[in-house]
Every structure is written in structure tokens, then in C-alpha cells.
């Protein structure tokens, strides 16, 4: 192995939870999330000489994890998102009948996966990584206003979905 292997191992061990969790929450599949997370670290390994500081490592890993996970999601196209924005009262009613019983034990994490990809990424970075909108904008390379909009719409959508399927959260 090349020089810097021990340093690389340290980086993997320190950040594996973060990268894997981010990938998992975007792609929603443990196997694919591991594949994405491994690819992210290997990409880091190939370009490790460009890294400047620990903060830069974390920022780099977050940015690449988001990009690789969304790429993987597009390739797989597991969950069509077209209907996610059009959450109507009729759908709510239908879900209430069909999903409520199935999802009584479901968690918000599962509802998160039904959000449109951009909203899901913003919510994940806000509540998993505890990043302010400005940092989310830097990671996702989007304007801050767009990020704030994704967050607001994502939360509203989650609240409406949760109100239907997980009534315990709205009491």
C-alpha cells in the first residue's frame, strides 16, 4: 500500500459512521449505502494529498457522500419522487386506511425516505449532521435560499405525512 495508509485508516475509522449514515438516509438501503460509503473513502484515498485540515476532511467527505449517494439513487431509481410533492388530502385519506396499520411502528426515518431527494438531503444534513442552512448550502452547492426552502417544505411534508401515519408525533 502507498504512503499515508495509517492516516487513511484513521480517517476511515473516525468518519465511517457519518459517511455511512448519510448514504443510508439518502439511498435507504444498507447494502447500497455501504457501497456508496466505500466509494467515497476510496475517492478520498486517491486524492488525499489535496486535503488541508480535519475540518476540510469532514466537509469533503460530506460533500462527496451527498453527491455519490444521490448519483446512486438516480441510477437505481428505487423510489419515484414525482408523487411526493403532490400530497393531497385524497392521498392522505388513502394512506390513513392502507398504511396506518402497517406503519404504526414506523419511524420518522422511514417517512424521510419518501421525501423528494433534495428535501431529504437538506433535512438529513440539518438534523443528522446538525448543520446550519449556510453549511448545507456549501455542501450541496446550492443557494442558501434554496436550502431553506427545501428544509421548510421537507418539514411541512413530513409533518403532514406524520399527522396521517404517525399520530403520536402530533399530539
Amino acid at each position: 500500500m502507498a504512503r499515508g495508509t495509517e492516516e487513511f485508516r484513521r480517517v476511515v475509522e473516525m468518519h465511517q459512521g457519518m459517511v455511512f449514515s448519510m448514504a443510508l438516509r439518502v439511498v435507504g438501503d444498507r447494502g447500497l449505502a455501504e457501497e456508496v460509503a466505500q466509494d467515497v473513502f476510496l475517492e478520498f484515498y486517491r486524492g488525499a494529498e489535496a486535503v488541508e485540515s480535519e475540518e476540510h476532511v469532514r466537509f469533503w467527505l460530506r460533500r462527496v457522500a451527498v453527491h455519490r449517494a444521490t448519483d446512486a439513487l438516480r441510477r437505481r431509481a428505487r423510489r419515484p419522487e414525482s408523487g411526493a410533492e403532490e400530497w393531497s388530502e385524497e392521498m392522505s385519506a388513502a394512506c390513513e386506511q392502507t398504511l396506518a396499520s402497517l406503519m404504526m411502528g414506523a419511524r420518522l426515518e422511514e417517512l424521510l425516505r419518501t421525501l423528494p431527494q433534495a428535501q431529504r438531503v437538506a433535512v438529513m444534513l440539518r438534523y443528522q449532521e446538525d448543520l446550519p442552512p449556510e453549511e448545507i448550502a456549501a455542501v450541496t452547492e446550492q443557494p442558501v435560499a434554496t436550502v431553506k426552502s427545501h428544509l421548510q417544505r421537507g418539514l411541512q411534508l413530513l409533518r403532514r405525512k406524520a399527522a396521517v401515519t404517525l399520530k403520536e408525533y402530533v399530539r
Partner: protein
Amino acid sequence: MSEFEQKQRELAEMAALEARLRQELARVEAPAGFAERVMARAAWEPVRMRRPSWVMFAVAAAVLVCAVIGGVRVQQEQRRERANAEFATAMQVTDRAMDRAEEHAREQMQRAGLDINEQDNGSRNGEEQR
């Protein structure tokens, strides 16, 4: 329920939702052996596609600039040496031509019965009288 109460309720719901999100979206642990699998893949990377760093570009640029400057200096030095040699040759030719002209003048004057030394003295005296 009044509009104000409705708004209050919505805000409370949103706050509760955010609290639950923070709680439920905590990081999860990577699968067991994840780091080992990454290290194994890194070890089997066929070729490390290292990007050339800016240092390499800077060194290459410096070498190129030095080579260009060195080449120009060598050319200038060669031109200078050539010019010196040509000047020396020209001076030798001129000296020889002057010697020959002087010799020719002496011969002419001797043939005319003139003493070069007298001529020289006469001209010197004339200059002194003036």
C-alpha cells in the same frame, strides 16, 4: 379554535417534529468490518490515479522558464563572441591595410627625393612658428 391558537399549535407540532428528527436521525454505526473492507479495496487499487499537484506544475513551469532563459543567454553569448571575433579580424585587416599604405607612401616619397624625416621635422617647425 382561533387562528392564533391554530398557529400556536402548528408551531408546537413543528418543534416536536424537529425534536423527534434530531433524536431519530442520529448517526448509525457503519456495518461491522467496514473499515477493513475499505482498506482492502484501497490496497488493491490497480493504479493510484494521483492528480498532479500545483507543486508539480510550479516545478515544471520553473524548469521551463529556466530552460528558455538559459537558451536565450547562450545565444546572446555566442553572438557576442562572434561579433568580437569579427571585430578582431576587421582590425587586423585594417592594420595590415594601413601598414601597406604607409609603406607605399614612404616608397613614393623616397622616389620623389623627399626625406620623410625632414618632412616630419619641417612640418613640426611650421607648427611651432605658427
